[in-house]
């Protein structure tokens, strides 16, 4: 279905909305000072309200034994992860807590032992708790939140969550005995109501200001391992769905109840198994054995949900959808997947089931696992691609969530190559900014910090804004640099004050005189220049980036196609002429702050790089197997033409390619027509 929002888009309306500069009788400097002060106030208010944390999931340090024992590598992975988090803390990151969303592998500690022997059970769990405590003790983030995963609950039988609770208690006690100041917070603590005489979980809440972090125990929601649940379930896979229905519905209702509290503004839910499709299941056919129990029981679980990681009654899922759609819920954090493809965690484009509520996509953030589990082939060799890592999360003042994944590779920890490149560029701009600022070259420092504000990572962007504001408000420093410093230098060297001031005056005069000319030159130089982007992707930012890449690639083909070919020569004496088949193709402009080329050159460079054309747009993928793409061509800030086809999810890339071709070809024709080619 096409989005009517795009179809009714009217570019002229946007033009009408352009801000008209306010005519103020106050001195410009005073206005800027006021604006800067107001900006700083806003920043400080934000700083007190924003929160960062780390999500780690699926370390499997006790149970990763297939296809070979990888527990040693997984323990090394967890220690390495803690070290990496510590390094980020040392570099200035301020994490409020680390959330571990299940699958330590506690189940393996109590497998194949006599469960009636309490001493033996306690001993095994204590052994594991001591091992984990020795690792956590190294952490510089002092609060660790936990929720149970399906591999933390023996045979995934709900009442067996009691071993997980026991483990959590032992872990906390052990850390205390070790003298560590790490606090262990079980976000799914034992429920003392003892439903059916057994101990279950409750939904715990930890509050930090306006933010509430809620635990949700969905460790049994796979409803698998039916052979262990008795004769009834063994003959009928759906029996376990029915058997566990009451407790699973109760767990969902517990979260719903917590959301009724009024002492927080925003809620973030931590659980293990995400409600969406399982990346393994989507590679299967509905006729495959693994999917058969689900396909056969479609009426029970909701007709289209047989690819889902949850194998639960439709009433449980309906209850959860109510939780997910609650406007106070701003983020859902889960784990559980072991897919070796990194893109499976970056976006949900691979999902086949169209029936999830849209909020499941926009609010859910699935963290990649830390363990090697399922990331080796059957010969125990590492796969070409692995997806192991942890997630850094940032909660803004308005409750919105930004996250990025740090991947573990053979060479160590790092962001995805694209994000790492962007991060390195921003770091370079910070270095430049710091260097210029230390040397009192505030204009250059401002330019570098402004460039750093392009960062897509909110904490970095905020840091750049703070630095930029500081530089913008250093009017006194500018005076010192351009007037007082030359005067002092002149005095100290015996040169007259006028002589020292003269270069500054000449410079200012030159800038004033050159300003209109350089702007004009910029306009002239930019007649054949094109800027691509930004193209905004929703709900996943990466969609826009991939569309920009498509545009860049098609632009490359256009250059080859329309390249100037004066003549074609062969073995004949007379060549063929082919000049009329060439056209000008706009050159793409990369916006970059130039290197150390002097302040006037920086200013001239910026003024003289003004691309006449720009392609901007948006791409939105909805949950009903459709997408809407919108792009607009601007010429000197005026909208020349827009394109907005709709397409199904299956052919998004094809639509992007066709749209890029149409827009760029139109641009080539338009530009050459304008310039009489």
């Amino acid at each position, binding site marked *: 279905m096409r989005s009517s929002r795009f179809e009714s888009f009217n570019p002229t309306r946007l033009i009408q909305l352009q801000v008209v500069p306010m005519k103020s009788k106050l001195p410009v400097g005073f206005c800027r000072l006021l604006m800067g002060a107001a900006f700083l106030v806003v920043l400080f208010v934000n700083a007190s309200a924003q929160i960062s944390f780390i999500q780690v999931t699926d370390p499997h340090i006790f149970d990763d034994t297939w296809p070979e024992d990888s527990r040693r590598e997984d323990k090394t992975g967890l220690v390495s992860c803690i070290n990496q988090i510590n390094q980020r803390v040392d570099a200035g990151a301020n994490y409020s807590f680390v959330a571990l969303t299940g699958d330590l592998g506690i189940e393996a500690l109590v497998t194949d032992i006599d469960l009636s022997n309490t001493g033996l059970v306690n001993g095994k769990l204590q052994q594991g708790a001591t091992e984990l405590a020795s690792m956590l003790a190294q952490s510089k983030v002092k609060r660790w939140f936990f929720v149970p995963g399906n591999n933390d609950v023996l045979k995934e039988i709900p009442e067996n969550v009691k071993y997980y609770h026991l483990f959590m208690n032992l872990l906390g006690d052990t850390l205390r005995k070790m003298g560590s100041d790490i606090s262990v917070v079980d976000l799914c603590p034992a429920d003392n109501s003892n439903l059916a005489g057994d101990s279950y979980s409750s939904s715990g809440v930890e509050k930090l200001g306006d933010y509430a972090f809620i635990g949700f125990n969905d460790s049994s929601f796979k409803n698998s391992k039916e052979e262990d649940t008795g004769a009834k379930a063994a003959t009928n896979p759906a029996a376990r769905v029915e058997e566990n229905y009451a407790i699973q519905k109760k767990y969902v209702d517990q979260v719903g109840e917590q959301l009724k509290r009024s002492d927080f503004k925003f809620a973030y839910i931590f659980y293990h198994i995400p409600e969406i499709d399982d990346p393994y299941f989507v590679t299967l056919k509905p006729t495959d054995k693994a999917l058969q129990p689900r396909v056969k029981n479609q009426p029970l679980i909701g007709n289209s949900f047989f690819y889902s990681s949850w194998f639960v009654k439709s009433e449980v899922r309906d209850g959860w959808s109510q939780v997910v759609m609650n406007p106070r819920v701003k983020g859902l954090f889960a784990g559980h997947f072991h897919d070796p493809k990194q893109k499976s965690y970056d976006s949900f484009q691979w999902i086949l089931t169209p029936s999830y509520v849209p909020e499941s996509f926009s609010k859910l953030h699935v963290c990649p696992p830390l363990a090697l589990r399922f990331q080796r082939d059957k010969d125990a060799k590492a796969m070409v691609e692995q997806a192991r890592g942890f997630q850094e999360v940032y909660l803004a003042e308005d409750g919105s969530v930004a996250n990025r994944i740090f991947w573990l590779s053979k060479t160590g920890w790092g962001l995805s190559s694209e994000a790492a490149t962007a991060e390195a560029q921003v770091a370079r701009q910070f270095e430049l900014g710091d260097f210029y600022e230390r040397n009192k070259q505030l204009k250059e420092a401002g330019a570098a910090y402004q460039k750093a504000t392009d960062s897509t990572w909110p904490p970095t962007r905020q840091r750049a804004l703070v630095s930029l504001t500081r530089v913008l408000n250093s009017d006194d420093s500018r005076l010192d640099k351009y007037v007082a410093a030359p005067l002092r230098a002149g005095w100290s060297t015996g040169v007259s004050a006028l002589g020292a001031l003269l270069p500054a005056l000449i410079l200012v005069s030159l800038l004033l005189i050159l300003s209109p000319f350089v702007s004009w030159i910029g306009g002239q130089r930019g007649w054949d220049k094109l800027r691509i982007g930004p193209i905004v992707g929703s709900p996943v930012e990466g969609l826009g980036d991939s569309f920009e890449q498509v545009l860049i690639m098609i632009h490359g083909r256009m250059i080859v196609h329309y390249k100037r070919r*004066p*003549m074609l020569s062969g073995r004949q004496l*007379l060549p063929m*002429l082919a000049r009329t088949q060439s056209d000008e193709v706009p050159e793409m402009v990369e916006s970059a702050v130039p290197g150390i080329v002097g302040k006037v050159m920086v200013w001239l460079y910026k003024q003289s790089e003004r691309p006449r054309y720009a392609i901007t747009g948006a791409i939105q993928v909805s949950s009903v197997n459709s997408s809407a793409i919108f792009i607009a061509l601007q010429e000197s800030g005026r909208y020349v033409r827009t394109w907005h086809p709709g397409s199904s999810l299956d052919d998004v890339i094809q639509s992007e390619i066709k749209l890029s071709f149409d827009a760029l070809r139109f641009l080539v024709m338009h530009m050459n027509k304008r310039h009489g*080619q």
Partner: protein
Amino acid sequence: MDNDTDNMKAFDLVTEALENLDALPESSIKNLLTQDSDSLSTAETLLSQASELDHNYFKAKYFHAMVTYLNSGREQLNIETQRAIDEFRDLSKSLAKESGTSVRKESVARELNYNLAAALFEGRRYPEAISLFEITVEESSNDPEVNLLASAGAALAYAARAVQESEKRSQDKDAVKKHYRHIRNELAPIFLPPLIPLLRLIRGKKPVDKQIADRVRKIIKLARVSAKTSSPPRPETFTDREKALG
């Protein structure tokens, strides 16, 4: 007929064909018999496919005619030359049928005339080639690149006819001299090529692509030598042609 296409597949096929053609000038003429003939064949196939996808795609058909021309001469006076002539003629007719006039259309028409005349020369149909070259020279006074190449082509065709037909020899030799003077005047001083752009600028004339200017100079030299010595200007072996073009 549209110069461009909305069909992305056809556009892509032409782009790929052009990439094959771009590799050609880097090779020596000797190599045209070997690996470059593969590039030409590939380009020809791709351009045919593009024309099939969009029957109105002028650019695909135009480049196809050029590739057919470049493919000719592998055997002595072969059917490829005739095919190239036919294709250029068809395109010329299609262009003439197009309604309206524009700078671009006129420019394409001039270029097409030159290319057709070159194909006629290659097919040894000298009177027709001379006639078309002369028309092109006349109509391209504001387009120095076409004008110079057409003038050089005309000189070459006159020289060839002078060797072939004795009754017009004196007249043809005079015509060669006329075109030589015209080119010398346009590209003067012919012995100082680096100064040409500057001199043209001073004289208020459009600049000429260096590659085209070099080629024109070689062709007119060949035509002049042929007219003086009454030897055929159109070498029959590849080695001789390579020598002739320096």
